[in-house]
């Protein structure tokens, strides 16, 4: 369980912004700005964060759909940061990706058989039982009717399409799957089916997952460990239960408390305890100095503006990038009004509204 299959250190992706007559680069979108991650063999690492935090870009860097600007990606002991086409094709056998939108990621003019068999044909993988049989086995594996081999994507529902995408990803028997928001476009009842399928497949095929999503509940359900990203940085990594029970980074705290609880009887309490963040995520073109969350953080002090907090391991095993991690006491500080954190957050809002910049 603890052999790292994937190791990412200092991974960066900057998209240049050009301007002026000569199209000189004047700035860069720092989509991913130095992240460290480890995914162990057979585990699921959940990568959460809000839109624009860089989690999808990170996924594309790891699968080498994009070329990193900096840092290293090591997969199965091999440095794949800048590998070229040939070895990249070999990498594709081991690392596959599942995408969010089951509509746009399947070519509408190809049959399911063609779509699922494409990786086999591109990689020239021998299929002793015959290509068609191999594809039908894959379809069965993901819970689709093998007789639907000759149908087109539009004849399937959203959940079934996502299953097709999964079958395609599994065709090459990869070691690792990077799933980028694989269930967020699906209806709740279907979402659960796909989550269960991914669970089952992991068990049966000994897969390693990097599960990228914004839905904290789903991530919690499926992951062994969870990494939280904010504005191109990983702010906290911890085993699932630790993270959800004892979030240490103020952003993680806010994120958790924002999730609506499907229990009307608890909503008043939840609302009282909720840490409401104000304003928007700053631009990744010109991120705040020091700690990137400081502009929205109720615990921010001067040092947060001057010094970037490194991702350090706390006593309880959390990796947190924060100068002032939230303690359990703070978090559970019960009270008639809002919690300490929430109260501090409230004050912060007041200042923000009064002084917008």
């Amino acid at each position, binding site marked *: 369980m603890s052999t790292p299959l994937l190791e990412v250190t200092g991974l960066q992706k900057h998209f240049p912004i050009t*301007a*002026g*007559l000569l*199209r000189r680069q004047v700035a860069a979108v720092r989509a991913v700005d130095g992240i460290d991650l480890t995914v162990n063999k057979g585990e699921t690492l959940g990568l959460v964060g809000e839109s624009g935090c860089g989690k999808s870009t990170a996924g594309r860097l790891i699968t080498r759909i994009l070329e990193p600007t900096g840092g290293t990606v090591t997969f199965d002991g091999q440095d794949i940061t800048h590998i070229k086409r040939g070895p990249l094709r070999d990498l594709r056998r081991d690392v596959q990706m599942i995408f969010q939108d089951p509509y746009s990621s399947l070519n509408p003019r190809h049959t399911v058989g063609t779509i699922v068999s494409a990786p086999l044909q591109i990689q020239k993988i021998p299929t002793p039982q015959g290509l068609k049989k191999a594809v039908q086995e894959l379809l069965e594996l993901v819970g689709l009717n093998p007789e639907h081999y000759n149908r087109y994507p539009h004849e399937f529902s959203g959940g079934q399409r996502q299953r097709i995408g999964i079958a395609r990803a599994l065709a090459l028997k990869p070691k690792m799957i990077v799933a980028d928001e694989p269930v967020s476009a699906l209806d709740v009842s279907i979402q659960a089916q796909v989550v269960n399928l991914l669970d089952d497949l992991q068990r049966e095929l000994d897969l390693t997952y990097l599960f990228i999503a914004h839905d904290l509940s789903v991530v919690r359900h499926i992951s062994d460990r969870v990494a939280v990203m904010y504005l191109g940085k990983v702010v906290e990594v911890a085993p699932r239960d630790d993270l959800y029970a004892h979030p240490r980074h103020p952003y993680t705290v806010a994120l958790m408390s924002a999730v609506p609880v499907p229990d009307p009887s608890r909503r008043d309490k939840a609302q009282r305890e909720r840490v409401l963040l104000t304003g928007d995520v700053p631009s990744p073109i010109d991120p705040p100095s020091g700690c990137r969350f400081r502009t929205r953080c109720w615990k921010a002090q001067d040092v947060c503006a001057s010094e970037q907090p490194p991702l350090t391991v706390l006593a309880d095993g959390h990796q947190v990038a924060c100068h002032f991690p939230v303690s359990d006491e703070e978090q559970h500080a019960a009270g008639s009004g809002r919690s300490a954190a929430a109260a501090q957050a409230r004050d912060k809002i007041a200042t923000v509204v009064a002084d917008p910049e």
Partner: protein
Amino acid sequence: MFAYVVRRLFNVVITLLVVTMVTFGVFFLVPKLTGSDPALLYVGKTADAAALDGIRTKLGLDDPIYVQYGKFLQGLVVGRDYDAGPDTTHCAAPCFGYSFKTDQEVWPYLIDRLPVTLSLALGAAILWVIGGVGAGVISALRKGRAADRIVMTTALAGVSLPIYFTGLVSAAIFCYWLGWLPPPGYVDFAVNPLEWATNLLLPWITLAFLFAATYARLTRANMLETLSEDYIRTARAKGLRERDVVGKHGLRSGLTPLITVFGLDLGSLLGGAILTETTFNLRGLGEATLTSIRQNDLPIILGVTLFAAFFIVIANLVVDLLYAAVDPRVRLS
């Protein structure tokens, strides 16, 4: 924005350079490869070898192609001199060259023809935009009903019928049979604006019919798409009157894509409407294109090609600028 325009203009120049190079290459290299001799085009049928040599020297045909091309470019920028016999004639910049076939400088020749094409294209453009967009909007609003079917059937006819057919039939009917219009021809606007208009009426209508058909179909499709947009639903949900929903919210975005098509259509028409011009005996750039190609008159071919390319790249640029002005989401960089 300024940098963008400068950069685009620079691209325009590059594009035009490439166009001249290709045209130049085609019309100078191809005869060499097929073993024919452009000099022969300039001489009488019984000219002897010495005369041919003389022509070659005079036209510079014995120079390497890059020298010839260099001279052409030099003419464009600073003008060049031509040996006209008793003395030399100076072809002032922009010198597009000198047609030995017709003994004229290309630039004035084309400039002379420009008003014809300009009148034809702009007049027709106004007609087809009004007619095509109007018909398309009606068609979209009456989707599936009689008006829609009539418009779309007419549009199909417009798209399918070649201009020399509609042109000759309409000329036969209106000019010769009914006698309502003068026989086609061109009268300069400055000479007689009324005759200018009545003479061009038929070509305008014929040309506009062809384009209006396309525009009606495009407009219909765009309008239908726009009317199903979420923001149209929002406009209705605000309590807006339907005519404002269509007129203010629908048209603006429904017609924006037409800018591109319109710009390119007008741009290429300004380079000459070959069929319309020949059918209606209009001496515009299109007719010049046809004549020069038939006569293998390279300098004029080069000239009209450059003109046409110029209009198209400029139209492209204008379209992009216009688009940015209309659609605030578009940023130029």
